[in-house]
């Protein structure tokens, strides 16, 4: 997804001489073509993410479209106040690109687990929080976002949902993709962990449970209609995110449904409980460890659906 995103960024940069990519000294092997092709549209800010974000704001307020680029929490939490006060308050055309959402860098340890970013960044006014699940979707969303005013955050996952583009399908900001239809439950995801939801839906189907699967292209704006529809049209909602269960996808879905008066029949947030992972492993290992893999999701969902059916029958 990262390479596809950067490829699209280079394509856009060739067309727009006022697109600038500012990296916090990361991107070896990834940004090389961009650096070589568009040297006047590239800046290495050094290992200085606060300044990277301030530079981007200053350039954006001077007529440029500025992208900041780093991995994990460096592009976000390290310079959070610069994002809030500078990029967001000034509504500057700054696009924050963080490579490695969730456990993408699963072997690198706590510092590199981006597992609170959605909660924190979605609280910032003016900021779009964009969560592609597929490589092609990341490109579509970038193409759409670059035309919009104001700041945005792209959470670029290492994994991908693995569901090919449908005929005529385009990723759109604020519009959920429906990957499977069903009535018993809706599984809602952001990012590449969609693959686990799709897997869980298949397992559930084999057991007579029909699951709708929604992938949200952005947490802000949120596709409220899709979520309210899920609450009203299916038995309940299970949210799945490679992120703490506090404040991220699950919270956004709960807020949306309750505010709309659409209470789901049951509701479960799957993600990290309120903990840091102190062990490492690849992205799929860590999903299994925290019960976020397809099998675990299917087991927990089936239990909820069973209870819901009993209640409904009674």
């Amino acid at each position, binding site marked *: 997804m990262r390479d596809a995103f950067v490829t699209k960024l280079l394509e856009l940069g060739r067309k727009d001489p006022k697109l600038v990519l500012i990296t916090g000294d990361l991107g070896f092997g990834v940004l090389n073509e961009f650096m070589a092709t568009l040297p*006047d549209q590239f800046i290495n800010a*050094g290992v200085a993410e606060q*300044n990277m974000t301030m*530079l981007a704001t*200053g350039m954006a307020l*001077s007529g440029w479209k*500025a992208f900041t680029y780093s991995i994990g929490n460096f592009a976000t939490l390290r310079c959070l106040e610069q994002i809030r006060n*500078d990029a967001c308050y*000034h509504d500057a055309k700054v696009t924050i690109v963080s490579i490695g959402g969730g456990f993408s860098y699963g072997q690198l340890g706590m510092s590199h687990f981006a597992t609170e970013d959605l909660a924190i960044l979605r609280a910032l006014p003016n900021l779009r929080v964009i969560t592609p699940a597929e490589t092609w979707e990341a490109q579509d969303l970038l193409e759409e976002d670059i035309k919009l005013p104001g700041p945005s955050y792209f959470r670029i996952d290492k994994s991908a949902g693995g569901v090919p583009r449908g005929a005529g399908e385009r990723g759109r900001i604020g519009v959920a993709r429906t990957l499977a239809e069903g009535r018993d439950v809706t599984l809602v995801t952001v990012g590449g962990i969609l693959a686990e939801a799709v897997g869980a839906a298949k397992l559930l189907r084999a057991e007579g449970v029909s699951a709708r699967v929604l992938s949200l292209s952005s947490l802000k704006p949120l596709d409220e209609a899709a979520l309210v529809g899920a609450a009203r049209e299916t038995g309940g909602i299970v949210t799945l995110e490679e992120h703490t269960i506090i404040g991220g996808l699950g919270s956004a879905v709960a807020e949306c449904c309750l505010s709309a008066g659409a209470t789901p029949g049951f509701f479960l947030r799957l993600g990290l409980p309120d903990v840091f992972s102190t062990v490492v492993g690849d992205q799929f290992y860590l999903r299994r460890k925290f019960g976020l893999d397809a099998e675990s999701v299917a087991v927990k969902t089936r239990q909820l659906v069973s209870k819901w059916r009993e209640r409904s029958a009674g």
Partner: protein
Amino acid sequence: MKLPNSDAPPSAQANEPSWTDPHVFAHRIRCHAISMTSLGKSSHVASVLSMAEILAVLYGRVLNIDPMRPDWEDRDRLILSKGHGGAGIYAALAERGFFPVDRLRDHYQNGSVFSGHVSHKGVPGVEISTGSLGHGLGIGAGMAMAARRSKEKWRVYIIMSDGECDEGSVWEAAMFAGHHRLGNLTAVIDYNHMQSLASVSDTLELEPFADKWRAFGWDALEVDGHACSTLEEALSARTGADRPRVVIAHTTKGKGVSFMENQVLWHYRSPQGEELAAALAELDSIGPPKDGRRDA
């Protein structure tokens, strides 16, 4: 409540607008700051008094700006990175004609856009909203880089505080601007030697301050921050400069009101009652230099 200085002080009643003479302009900024912080019961009056000449010289003599076109693309940019001095910027912009002086009465009032820490929302002429220290220089470096890469002539000025230089982000930006030789960037530091709880020296020593900037690739000058002609010379545009410049302006916190000078208390206290009257009386008794040229 009637603002005590709503009538122009005698020294400012000339036909010329106040801003053409930096001494008169600085005097007006001080009078406004005293009144605004009194009316708003707000802090940081002493931080405005220390930079009155810096503001007056920049807004009156140095910056290429047009009050009729605050968003003019070719304007010079000024960022007040020490956002707690917001009253000073509002006063300078009002005197300069960006909006009516009467609007200064709104400072700190319920529903007002004139926040204690400077905000650009709804206030023509303010480039950047600040208040958290250590943001202005990096944003300014971004602007300077944008101007250079777009081959534009406008320049960028940043006013910073001394205590602000405790922030690591200042030195991130300083290293960047020095490395990239941003000659279109000028920082001026209101070095009043006082910060929030104690003196700079007792908090975190900045000296050798100019040498620190030079080591980061900057052209560093130390000047008397209340001497208008010296400031103007140091801040004026430099053709073909290949390094950013920092002007370390030695100032007196609370300058112009004897009982506020060098007192940490007046980082916070708002002048009321007898103190307000005494402060304004002292400013008026001193006034700007009669010939309009002598430096304070």
